[in-house]
């Protein structure tokens, strides 16, 4: 965003909210993430019409309609693919992708690792409640192996998915963990993530009060903003693997090459002159 485009009036968080009331259960962690996001956007003073917020399917993925920005509530697991197309075609936009742990790490896992690798300038917000909320309580990749559910009556027995470790190995250049119960810390992380040039993973622990009521206790264990960022991947790896999952803050921020649109790159002549050249090349 160039300086001229910055709106004169300082924005307020509420400027970014729509009139739609969220469908979320009362007390759902996702409410606080919505709030933190609008605060971060206001802080950064980004024009509403220059924001593209895309998501998949899930409780968390309902987010876009609650902001008054250009939103896309896509299909399950494909938020990052939508976001990548949008960002490459429209490098001028602030592109944010959002969704849940099921959406992003289970069905969307392939786009996740490849979006990390491409390192396009996209902020990816994962609202991780360690469960499929929308479909009423099945284990997700981040679910504890011991958690009993209808689908896994004795627990899955699978050690849980390590999103930050995988993001790091895959090439993401900004990796943070936030907590929906810490709106200030979260706003700060989101502000940094959006400002960061490159792919930012913001993994947010967000309780599902309905299907994982025990997560209401998360606030007792979370350590707020106790992490300091590394620029070196091995150090970041150590911090990520070393954590019990209750630390929050930015783990990794590096200045890696960003995959950018060619749309803006200089070319000789007008589009129609270029088409002439292209067509001439076909002649015998």
């Amino acid at each position, binding site marked *: 965003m160039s300086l001229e485009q910055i709106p004169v009036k300082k924005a307020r968080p509420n400027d970014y909210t729509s009139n739609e009331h969220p469908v979320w259960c009362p007390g759902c962690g996702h409410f606080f993430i919505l709030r933190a996001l609008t605060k971060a956007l206001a802080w950064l003073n980004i024009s509403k019409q220059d924001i593209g917020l895309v998501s998949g399917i899930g409780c968390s993925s309902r987010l876009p309609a609650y902001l008054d920005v250009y939103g896309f509530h896509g299909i399950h697991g494909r938020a990052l693919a939508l976001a990548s197309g949008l960002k490459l075609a429209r490098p001028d936009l602030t592109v944010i992708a959002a969704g849940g742990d099921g959406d992003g790490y289970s069905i969307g896992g392939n786009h996740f690792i490849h979006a990390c690798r491409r390192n396009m300038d996209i902020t990816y917000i994962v609202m991780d409640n360690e469960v499929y909320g929308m479909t009423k309580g099945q284990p997700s990749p981040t679910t504890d192996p011991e958690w009993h559910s209808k689908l896994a009556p004795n627990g899955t027995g699978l050690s849980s998915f390590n999103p930050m470790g995988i993001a790091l190995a895959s090439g993401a250049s900004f990796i943070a963990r936030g907590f929906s119960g810490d709106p200030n810390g979260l706003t700060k992380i989101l502000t940094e993530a959006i400002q960061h040039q490159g792919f930012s993973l913001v993994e947010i622990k967000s309780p599902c009060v309905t299907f994982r009521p025990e997560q209401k206790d998360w606030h007792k264990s979370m350590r707020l903003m106790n992490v300091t960022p590394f620029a070196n991947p091995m150090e970041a790896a150590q911090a990520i693997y070393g954590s019990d999952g209750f630390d929050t803050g930015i783990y990794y921020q590096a200045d890696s090459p960003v995959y950018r649109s060619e749309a803006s*790159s200089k070319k000789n002549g007008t589009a129609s002159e270029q088409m002439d050249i292209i067509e001439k090349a076909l002649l015998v």
Partner: protein
Amino acid sequence: MANSLLETDQHRLALSISGSGGTGAVTVGLILLDAVAKAGFYGNMTRAFGPQIRGGESAVMLHFSDQPIETLAEFSELHLALDWVKFDRFEDEIPLTSSSLVIYDNSREKPPGLVKESGATLIGLDLQAIVKTLKGSRLNMVALGVVAQQIGLASHFIEAALQKTLGRKGPEVVTTSMAAVSAGMTLLTDTPLPGLADWHPTQTPRWNISGNEACGLGALRGGLKFAAAYPITPATDIVEYLAKPLAQTGGNLLIAEDELAAMNMVIGASFGGVPSMTSTSGPGLSLMTEAMGLAVAAEIPALVVTVMRGGPSTGIPTKSEQSDLNQALYALHGDAPHLVIAPLNIQESATVSQWSLRLSEALQTLVILVTDQHLGQTRMIMNPVEALDLNLQRSQPSAANEETSYQRYQLTETAISPMSIPGMTALQYTADGLTHSESGLPSSRAEDHAQQLHKRADKLSQFEYGDRWACTIPTAKAKFTIITWGSSFEAVKEAVETLNRQGAAISLIGLRLIMPLRTETLIELTQQQKVLVIEQNDSAQLYHYLLSQKAIPIDSDALAEPGPLLFKPTDLMPRIQTWMEGQL
């Protein structure tokens, strides 16, 4: 007249070349095609490969003419065998007859039994001996010289073509190769073939282009600025072609991790206001199914080109079939109206793809453009095709109105709702694949559901597509009408024209706009007719689709046959005749 089981008033010449891995059969074909083009003629070239990835046997079939020509040759007049390794694999593709001339290198194996049995005239030459005398030369270049001489192609055309094909390897390679060609030209001066000698060259500019390239070109002309794709045979050439032009015109090509990503990337880019496409083939289209439904429901313009190959499953990836029509029509879950369009030949691929991209924009919908391996990978020398002058734009809302908030999926007379683009002030909305009301907000009410279902169907069915929907070739007093589509069209057309010249009266319809079907017009055209639907698949997919829409009489028939071999006019003719007799 040469190659003339069919009566036609144009000159034609059919050649083929085969050889095992590394012999350079394909290179000879490419150079010949270009040289004959430079000499002022038209032609086409197809390829066949053995199962090996590379290093295996391969063959090319060339069909030349003094007029534009799309059909493949029915048999080979001159076959050049660089060797005979596994030649039997190409028995179906390279029919030899007693009037064929076969030239081969007699320093290697002898011609196999099936070649001898064909009754063709066999000429073994000691090409290897020449190669030995010319330092750095290759056998295929000597052979190229022999063929050039046989068909009466002047050496400077070959030289120009060599320059184009091998030029980037340095001037020396061209010189050495040309020396081999010249040597070859002296080897066999006796020419039983009529060749190109008495053909009239044209001075008009022509293109050397494949169908896949033409398809890409049409999209560029339609304003394409974004493509995302995952490689798949036989569609990869489209995006490989697009890579450079897109960069030249300030567009982007994104290599996706898979087809799920590719389709969603296209939707994301198009949501951003940028005309976008992807290309794939059956297996990839299967993976795009879910996201295509999103494009329909959220009304995002998107062009998907699918280049059919043999199916089901991985099937026969390198060969042609028309068996993915059902998929293009019906794969999406829910009631999901969209456009299904197909070019009738290579020549029109560019215009049909341009039209398709613009329709996707104007109708804010998914367009599936269906071609196939034959249409896509055949290389043509053809007259340049003018770009269409289309006025099909994505409708955009006028500046925001403070009073009434923007309704993304508003009902309108055309059923097309103005679509805002990120960056437009005060016109923000959320696109959604959930059933929604006019505002775009999710709704599960029966009324909203029906309203938006009908809106999306109506915008497509009400639209005025003009007469590009089909190529209709009526014949006076015809009692018979044949309907076909895609790569079957040219062969059927040639068969019908020949039969008509022989006294039959058959009308022909080649469908381009398959969905939504122009049902009323089709009924008008066929109601008094005996109708035959010809297509290259096993289950008569187009035929059943036309029946399902009551677009053809109930006593209509189908002539459906799976790939991978294309229909030939001469095979079709007696079958059409038998069918006509059965109708009396």
